[in-house]
């Protein structure tokens, strides 16, 4: 006789805690194929209040996370890859069952996601050297330009199943934002949120400080407008917002002059790039007077 499974409750990940939506709402996410312990689960459905709470948590985490050294941030991001690597089977199973892809495609997606954390981890102590510079100005000044994190970034992760898929799409969107020291509020794939919610468990056990990544499952159409208009959000990544009224989101973001990245379609959406890191940074230029000898 087979053992009776103990299914997991899929909750939001906000401020380092796994919480139900304050609204009490859930929505049913059903398996599409393959074997999973249950045929459907109830994912928490985030509300406007949850989104605002997540921004508060993300803001509170900015000074700590952006204040760490690049070397330290790189190690934390690398540890995400380590922990995820140890849970490859669980993620592949979730992806196969809820995205309806083959077991091998699901495994490939997980592996690529792990490798992508490694790739971005290596940028944390280098992007400043590549994107910053000393400036030879015409006068007795030492002048240096360095990129710094922009602050709190709201992200709509890729929504469609398949390629890049719910986990890889999430990592392509979130990892580059974290590299420089930003904190994020992410809306994962609405149809297949489970890999992202399970990834919260990886963050929680990878030395990622509480509030640095906040995951809000639910309806992007419902929550995104509140994040786009929120005055304490500095930037908006619409990567996975192609199916939404994303122009309205960009217009809402203009009120506080947020930096906005538009949606990207297709399998290359959010392809790894240095530009995805530097877009969410600000160049600060400091002039230091040189004394007379």
């Amino acid at each position, binding site marked *: 006789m087979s053992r009776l499974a103990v299914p997991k409750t899929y909750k939001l990940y906000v401020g380092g805690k796994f919480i139900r939506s304050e609204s009490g709402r859930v929505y049913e996410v059903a398996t599409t194929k393959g074997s999973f312990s249950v045929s459907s689960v109830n994912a928490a459905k985030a509300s406007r209040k949850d989104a605002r709470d997540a921004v508060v948590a993300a803001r509170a985490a900015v000074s700590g996370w952006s204040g760490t050294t690049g070397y330290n941030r790189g190690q934390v991001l690398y540890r995400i890859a380590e922990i995820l690597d140890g849970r490859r089977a669980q993620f592949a199973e979730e992806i196969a069952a809820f995205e309806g892809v083959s077991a091998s495609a699901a495994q490939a997606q997980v592996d690529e996601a792990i490798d*992508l954390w490694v*790739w971005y981890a290596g940028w944390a102590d280098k992007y400043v050297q*590549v*994107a910053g*510079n000393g*400036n*030879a*100005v*015409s*006068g007795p*000044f030492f*002048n240096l*330009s360095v990129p710094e994190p*922009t602050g709190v970034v709201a992200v709509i992760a890729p929504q469609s199943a398949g390629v890049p898929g719910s986990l890889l799409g999430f990592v392509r969107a979130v990892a580059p934002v974290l590299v420089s020291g930003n904190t994020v509020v992410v809306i994962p794939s609405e149809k297949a949120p489970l890999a992202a919610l399970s990834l919260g468990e990886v963050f929680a056990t990878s030395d990622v400080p509480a509030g640095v990544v906040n995951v809000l499952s639910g309806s992007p159409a419902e929550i995104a407008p509140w994040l786009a208009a929120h005055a304490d959000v*500095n930037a908006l990544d619409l990567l996975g917002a192609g199916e939404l009224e*994303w*122009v309205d989101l*960009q*217009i809402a*973001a*203009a*009120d*506080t*002059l947020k*930096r*906005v*990245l*538009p*949606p*990207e379609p297709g399998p*290359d959406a959010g*392809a*790894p*790039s*240095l*530009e*995805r890191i530097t*877009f969410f940074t*600000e*160049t*600060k*230029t*400091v*002039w*230091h*007077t040189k004394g007379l000898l």
Partner: protein
Amino acid sequence: MTFLDYAPAPESAAILNLRDEYGLFINGEFVPGNGESFTTISPATEKHIATVSCASEQDVDAAVVAARRAYDKTWSRMSGADRGKYLFRIARLVQERARELAVAESLDNGKPIKESRDVDIPLVAAWFFYYAGWADKLEYAGLGPNPRSLGVAAQVIPWNFPLLMLAWKIAPALAAGNTVVLKPAETTPLTALLFAEILQQADLPAGVVNIVTGAGATGSALVNHPDVNKVAFTGSTAVGRQIARSTAGTSKKLTLELGGKGANIVFDDAPIDQAVEGIVNGIFFNQGQVCCAGSRLLVQESIHDDVVERLKARLSTLRVGDPLDKNTDVGAINSASQLGRMRELSDIGEQEGAERWSPACNLPSEGFWFPPTIFTNVSTSSRIARDEIFGPVLSVLTFRTPAEAIAKANNTPYGLSAGIWTDKGSRILAVADKLRAGVVWANTFNKFDPASPFGGYKESGYGREGGKQGLHAYLAPSAFAGSSAFKGDAR
């Protein structure tokens, strides 16, 4: 005459050879506009300088068509080396006609001739010289091999540094291989039109730069034109928001350089006399009509009284008056509407309980004038500590600890500039790290250089002008699909 009185030493306006009327500069020629012509006046005397055409929507379209044609047929096909040579030529012509441009700028804008002569125009030449050299070296700009130009750039600039802002916009755009339609500010079109003559002298191919004069409607028609690939705007945060809204959903690349409420932080170990000069330069340079002005003085409590006393003594020696007089320190306010805003906000400052002080000075009866003004006893919630006044008005606040100074400096939706005055190098570095501002001046203020990126955090806008970062505003990586998508390094 006391020892501080100076005999008038006016720069002669005879060097100018102005026309009575100026048309729009489209496709290499001056053409009459279809809008209602307007006059540009000297803000120091309110006297008429010239009549200027106003570009209608149809004129803006003609300018964009000319820029598109020049982009497709000429400029995008030209070698970087040749584009650079044109920019070097322009730089030299600006240097040769520098005095004439300085006089025209002071006449039209109201700024002191010593600033237009020693700051604005030399920087204009430097900007063209700097970006000229980039034109054939774009693969070193940090965007990978063969970065691409964007197409037609729509550029709208303010009135506070008319020709310098033109240079900040046009030089990198052309170096990167774009063509340009630029709208100068309504109240200061003169030097842009003289610059058009320089372009004719330089034999720049027709349509590569087009200049359309007019007011807000002209600017709106320009940035909303469907055949524009790039929008660059310098001006108020309110207009910047409108442009961000109207370009949302389009593939136009947008950079915005908007308002500011810069904090100038003076620690108790600062060299006080130098700091006082820096404070004066920070807020009274160009009559305070500077987006990166140090309009909030944050002074450590223990030296507050000393600093304010020395500041008052220094302000009493500033000479306010004729912009063309070589001795003038503070010139005229650019327009009646700006003057109205300064008066209104200063009155509010008094009503909110701050103490207002200005040196005794005789302001001319004609023209637009506002005396250098400082407010002490200002609370952080006061309008004069929060709103950009864009005039010669300094709000003085105090702090006790570095942490408090940083918190107060960052307590604004803006994030353009900041200053730090202290003799302690490690403190400069630590405080500069924490300030949320795009440009930080340590023991100096209001320094500009074409090699040095300039631009804001938060609601002061996005994008940088100057340096290789300034080129990025007008380039895309070679794999760029042409609209919005980033295509990163293949792993």
